[in-house]
């Protein structure tokens, strides 16, 4: 069995000496035995030497068999080592992604010129070193085996052939010029481009080919919200709320922590107001929502309200605030008083059975905290709602929370009318050429637009995409484009902050000179406008643009080249700008309020769509890591579903996994039922982005497509009233990594009592209301002391850890349960994607999970989340039971795991009280989707520092031991002891709200030690005396006193 040469490095000499000697001598013995002595003729019949000779011969023969012929591989060094690369050490590049909505600055970790990990850019003022799960997982997108290798031309019969770029360019110019001559239209359908140069290039294209138009659209973008904004406020751009300054936050069916462009920023700011060391500074979050969302489960008070009644609530609130309590300057405005008179909070509350106590508490909170409170309205709700919310925000003076930087806002994204116009002109045959630039309208756009059939009328359809999409499948020319990690570029999302994008790897497919391969879309357009192809055309263009527009803005003395390099180095430039102070205009609101809010009928159903947490609009469908990342609330993987409340399910006579038929107007869709505690009655909430019919090997036919439910009245309107919902025959299994036993019916009484709130009965989760906590801050410390008094061991001697001892602290007040850490862990530790079937069998491989517990009732559940990973116990029960010592303790207090030694008895996993060990039941590299992961390109995505585990091996979190070892060697190089602060673990880096702390427990001043001494500190199940090294901070719910009474 061949070993890697450096495998047993510590024993190398020892081994080579001894075993080497043995081989040598023995082989010589064979030689003598055979070739000198073996002469059968000379031998008499009775001859020991003949015997020995033959014995030797046979032994030698056997020896031949034992020798090992496996290919030991070759070593290929650099022949010219680049200056910045030290083999085996990572490099970091600042660049920008637009994987997640909007452009996010990232810091890419590369090894020998290959990107392996993506984190946030710590210097960036907005994200401050954080990125969403989708950006983290995007490294898989780069190495996606489904990526197109070169331009494809598709004939009418659907057959495809590879074409060269020159052919493509020729054909384009021919078609385009013809179109211009005949006065026909050329349409470019593009995503929301935040890149100045990109826009300029499009402009150039328009100049070159007059009569061409650009349609910019974003399926998740809601024009209504922007229209409402411009109705209420004058001036361009939109403010960004500084959540950190807000004391009272009201979320109206807007999952602002879980979704939307600012979620990273909000998560951080929210967390900063939930610091266990500053309990008095906690903010208060009210959430009024239709389905249970990330924001809802973080909220201190949560109310269920069907989505189509939110406007009524907001108006009632306005009435309560302005008319009844006379808050704000509009209290004296007659028109407003008039318009609001028939919206009464009490009536509304009783009508929708909302807790009036909570509502009143909320109102008085808003009243008492003017200038320190804000309402968030659901992005995809109606224009009216947004107008109304803007009004209340004005009343409670939330403009004081506007942060210095502001976003460009709606830079002329298409609204419904524009799309309709486009479709019309396509149908009427005015459009000669349409280019889809990394857009997928066939999948995204509501069927009512009839975009598909309109597209058929266009003679030439070109799609620029990385992986074949629904739209590219119906295009004549499919042009493969770069992944963002291969391309240059810039972006300008926040006013005054320009992000730069630089490639961190050469294009995987085809070099610049070659005729096949990928090109980035800006480059393609430049080629078309300039009429000729040039290497670096775009780079030169980009530089020129920056020299012309951005360099002057910072009036510095240095040369441009220096400025350019330093901007590349930092990944962005910041330019001071003044935020306009938008003026409020109440007229719109009066109009909205006066128009009597039409309450939905009693028994009609409301449908609330929302973008998927992980797949957004479906663009990440082909990314296994994201597909398998459990839904933050329901923990469902690989699917979307119709979430309804238990009562509604009973009313509809459906059970989980039954098919549900949802009809809105003339549009219908069939979805499996998932019973989600905390969903409003008569409400169905569904996630978009699933059901791609062509998204690559992984993403195709996963889940159900609900874009068909969207209407053509306005883009981005995800709330539907008066839907009719009924049971449909057939079932479809929805798989989740964590069931909610608590609310099962078939549990016998005797058991039910113990099953409900099991997590609280077993002291896995500790929670307190703010008031009780203030009354008795030491409540937990007492309990813990009691607990710890009784743990004893027969072994008196305890092991002492010298030097560093690693530990972790997780602040449950800050953790929102967003699941970003899980993807971070997957990427860092080469964790395989196992697929739906395996997850169904509880074989998901995530080293880290976020347990979600419900307590209370199925209708109004109290939700607690808890990140659970290997606790690196000092008295690790898993180590004791391993017969082969494959898992043992390291000198720095880690619970080490030697994969190569593991025979897979799985006792360790049984004996782990936290159930954080994961076993490779199958070879998931080969198993998943026809060895999708075993292709040579996919293996490039693996972290070279971490073993790729094979079948039959146990694995688990080791606090990113590879990073620790890296830091150790670094410290050694610098001739110093390793410090706790030298290491950050992947989940910690990935956590947008910095809830995870990691460091040295032996250092009394380290952050973890500080948390260990905190009064809210506890460890899970200490009574077992396993001595876990992960400390949790008990959650404090900042409830309002009135509301509780």
């Amino acid at each position: 069995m061949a070993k890697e040469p450096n495998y047993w490095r510590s024993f190398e000499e020892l081994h080579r000496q001894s075993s080497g000697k043995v081989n040598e001598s023995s082989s010589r013995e064979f030689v003598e035995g055979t070739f000198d002595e073996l002469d059968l003729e000379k031998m008499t019949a009775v001859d020991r030497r003949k015997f020995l000779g033959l014995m030797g011969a046979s032994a030698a023969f056997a020896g031949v068999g034992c020798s090992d012929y496996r290919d030991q591989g070759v070593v290929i060094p650099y022949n010219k080592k680049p200056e910045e690369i030290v083999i085996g050490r990572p490099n970091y590049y600042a660049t920008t992604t637009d994987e997640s909505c909007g452009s996010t600055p990232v810091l890419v970790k590369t090894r020998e010129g290959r990107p392996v990990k993506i984190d946030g850019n710590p210097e960036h003022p907005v994200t401050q070193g954080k990125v969403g799960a989708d950006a983290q997982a995007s490294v898989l997108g780069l190495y996606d085996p489904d990526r197109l290798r070169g331009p494809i031309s598709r004939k009418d019969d659907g057959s495809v052939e590879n074409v060269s770029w020159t052919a493509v360019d020729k054909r384009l110019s021919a078609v385009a010029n013809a179109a211009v001559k005949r006065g026909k239209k050329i349409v470019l359908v593009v995503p929301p481009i935040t890149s100045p140069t990109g826009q300029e290039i499009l402009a150039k294209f328009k100049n070159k080919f007059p009569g061409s138009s650009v349609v910019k659209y974003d399926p998740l973008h809601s024009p209504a919200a922007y229209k409402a904004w411009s109705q209420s406020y004058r001036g361009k751009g939109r403010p960004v709320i500084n959540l950190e300054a807000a004391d009272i936050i009201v979320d109206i069916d807007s999952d602002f922590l879980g979704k939307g462009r600012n979620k990273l920023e909000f998560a951080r700011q929210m967390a900063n107001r939930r610091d266990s060391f500053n309990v008095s500074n906690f903010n208060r979050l009210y959430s009024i929502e239709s389905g249970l969302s990330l924001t809802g489960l973080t909220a201190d008070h949560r109310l269920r309200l069907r989505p189509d009644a939110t406007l009524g609530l907001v108006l009632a609130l306005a009435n309560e605030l302005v008319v009844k309590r006379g808050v704000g300057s509009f209290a004296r405005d007659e028109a407003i008083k008039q318009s609001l008179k028939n919206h009464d909070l009490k009536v509304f509350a009783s009508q929708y059975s909302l807790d009036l106590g909570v509502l009143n508490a909320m109102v008085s909170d808003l009243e008492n905290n003017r200038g320190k409170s804000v309402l968030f309205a659901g992005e995809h709700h109606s224009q009216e709602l947004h107008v109304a919310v803007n009004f209340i925000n004005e009343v409670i003076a939330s403009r004081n929370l506007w942060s210095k930087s502001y976003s460009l806002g709606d830079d002329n994204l298409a609204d419904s009318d524009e799309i309709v116009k486009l479709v019309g002109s396509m149908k009427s045959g005015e459009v000669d050429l349409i280019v889809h630039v990394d857009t997928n309208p066939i999948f995204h756009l509501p069927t009512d637009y009839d975009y598909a059939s309109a597209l058929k009328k266009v003679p030439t359809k070109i799609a620029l995409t990385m992986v074949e999409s629904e739209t590219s499948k119906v295009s004549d020319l499919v042009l493969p484009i770069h992944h963002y990690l291969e391309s240059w570029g810039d972006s300008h999302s926040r006013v005054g902050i320009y992000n730069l994008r630089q490639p961190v790897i050469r294009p995987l497919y085809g070099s610049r000179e070659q005729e096949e391969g990928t090109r980035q879309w800006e480059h393609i357009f430049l080629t078309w406008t300039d009429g000729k192809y040039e290497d670096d055309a775009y780079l030169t263009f980009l530089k020129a643009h920056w020299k012309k527009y951005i360099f002057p803005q910072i009036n510095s003395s240095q040369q441009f080249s220096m400025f350019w390099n330093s901007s590349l180095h930092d990944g962005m430039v910041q330019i001071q700008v003044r935020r306009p102070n938008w003026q409020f205009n109440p007229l719109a609101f009066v109009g909205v309020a006066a128009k009597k809010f039409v309450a939905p009928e009693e028994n009609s159903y409301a449908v609330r769509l929302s973008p998927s947490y992980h797949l957004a609009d479906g663009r990440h469908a082909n990314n296994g890591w994201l597909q398998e990342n459990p839904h933050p609330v329901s923990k469902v993987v690989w699917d979307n579903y119709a979430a309804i409340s238990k009562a509604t399910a009973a009313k509809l006579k459906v059970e989980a996994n039954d098919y549900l038929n949802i009809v809105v107007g003339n549009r219908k869709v069939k979805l499996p039922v998932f019973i989600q505690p905390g969903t409003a009655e008569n409400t169905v909430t569904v996630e978009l982005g699933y059901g791609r019919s062509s998204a690559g090997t992984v993403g195709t036919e996963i889940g159900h497509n609900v874009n068909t439910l969207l209407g053509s009245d306005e883009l981005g309107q995800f709330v539907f009233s008066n839907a009719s919902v009924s049971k449909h025959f057939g079932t479809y299994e929805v798989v989740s990594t964590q069931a909610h036993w608590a609310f099962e019916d078939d549990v016998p009484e005797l058991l039910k009592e113990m099953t409900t709130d099991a997590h609280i009965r077993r002291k896995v989760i500790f929670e307190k209301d703010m008031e009780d906590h203030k009354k008795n801050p030491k409540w937990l410390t007492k309990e813990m002391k009691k607990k710890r008094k009784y743990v004893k061991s027969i072994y008196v001697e305890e092991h002492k850890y010298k030097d560093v001892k690693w530990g972790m602290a997780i602040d449950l007040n800050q953790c929102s349960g967003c699941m970003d850490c899980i993807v971070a862990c997957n990427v860092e530790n080469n964790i395989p994607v196992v697929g739906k079937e395996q997850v169904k069998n509880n074989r998901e491989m995530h080293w880290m999970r976020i347990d979600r517990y419900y307590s209370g009732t199925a209708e109004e559940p109290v939700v607690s989340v808890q990140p659970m990973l290997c606790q690196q116990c000092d008295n690790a029960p898993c180590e004791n039971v391993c017969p082969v010592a494959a898992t043992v303790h390291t000198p720095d207090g880690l619970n080490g795991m030697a994969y190569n030694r593991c025979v897979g008895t799985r006792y360790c996993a049984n004996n782990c009280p936290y159930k954080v060990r994961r076993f490779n039941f199958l070879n998931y590299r080969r198993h998943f989707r026809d060895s999708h992961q075993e292709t040579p390109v996919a293996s490039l995505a693996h972290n070279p520092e971490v073993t790729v585990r094979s079948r039959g091996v146990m694995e688990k979190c080791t606090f990113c031991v590879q990073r620790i070892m890296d830091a150790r060697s670094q410290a050694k190089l610098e001739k110093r002891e390793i410090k706790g602060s030298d290491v950050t673990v992947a989940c910690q880096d990935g956590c947008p709200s910095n809830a995870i702390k990691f460091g040295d427990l032996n250092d009394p001043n380290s952050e973890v030690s500080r948390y260990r001494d905190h009064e809210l500190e506890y460890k899970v199940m200490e009574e077992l005396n396993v001595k876990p090294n992960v400390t949790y901070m008990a959650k404090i719910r900042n409830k309002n006193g009135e509301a509780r009474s």
Partner: protein
Amino acid sequence: MSKKVDSVVALFDTPDQIIHAAEKTVEAGYKEFDVHTPYPVHGMDHAMSLPGTKLPYVTLMCGLFGFSFALFFQWYVSGDPLSGFGAKQLFLPYWLERYPFVIGGKPLFSLPAFVPVMFEVTVLLSALGTVAAMIAVFCGLPANGHPLHNTDYMKAVSCNRFGLCIEAKDANFDEAKVREFMLEQGGQSVVTVYEPYRRPPSFFSSLIFLGLLVGVAIGVGTKTYIVYNKVLYSWMFLWLDYTDKVKPQQKSEFFADGRTMQLPVDGTVARGYMPYEYKGNPEGAGQFLVNPADQTSEVLAHGKKLYNIYCTACHGTYGDGDGKVVVREAGKGLKPPSLHSSKLKEWSDGRIYHVISEGQNVMPGYAKQILADERWAVVHYVRALQRAKDAKESDLQ
């Protein structure tokens, strides 16, 4: 040759008879005699006045050995209990090395956990020891060649008869007397047993055996080859020796150039590696670049090390431009300037740094071999050399 007498045997029908016969034999003073019964007949030991067996002592010995060995062995392989982590290994052959693992926070020598194995080993060894001793030592088995075998006598006693056998090696053995004695005791079918002739086994000459040997060898050879190079590396056995990831300096099936190590894209800027601003602009470098490294002894030492590695070959140990290469390759236009020329002394650190990084004339750039800050260290060392050449009072401070 005449057959050698081994013994005289007689058969009896009932246990009572044989017991009686045995007692009589003892009285008659025969020592070397034996009784054969299909099953242990009780009272026979007494009748033959046999001494008790010593077997139990063997058992005891083996048991004690097993116990102590198990205890020692577990103590040993669980690591040296006296020193915890980083226990310095004794000087042992590699195959006797062991790690002092801390497992589950238990002490290296956690006796309670060792008890079960101690027990099992004790039982195992004492059981095996007993049986082995019984068969081999006390009964002297296997003894398939014993004269009594394949005799009607043996067939009888192995089924349902009881036999008495007086052996020839007894002191007062006399065939006639003994036969007579047997008959007196009512023994039937009294027979004399002779030692069979055994010809010495001609083991090695048998060609069949040699053929067999070769056959086995070939068999073993092919089997080992197939197992170790084919079967064990078939897809179903996974050894984790080659895992599905990419390591530095590996061959790549994916990249066109067959390397896993890719070059960074031109014009990109990695963190901490600002590109060199003064490419082909020595004056600029001389003007604007200042030496960031401060002139500490470590820096100088490091600079010296690097200088001796990279520069001495041409510039010579003291920078006089008389390096080995220059001397050997004399007259090949290889004339590195002395570092002590006034020109070089006037050069700014930046200027020298530029030359080191970019090279000039024949000299190649060393940017790829020497990191930026190291190059600055070299510059310091060069400066030191220059000063050392003609030291002034001021340098001594």
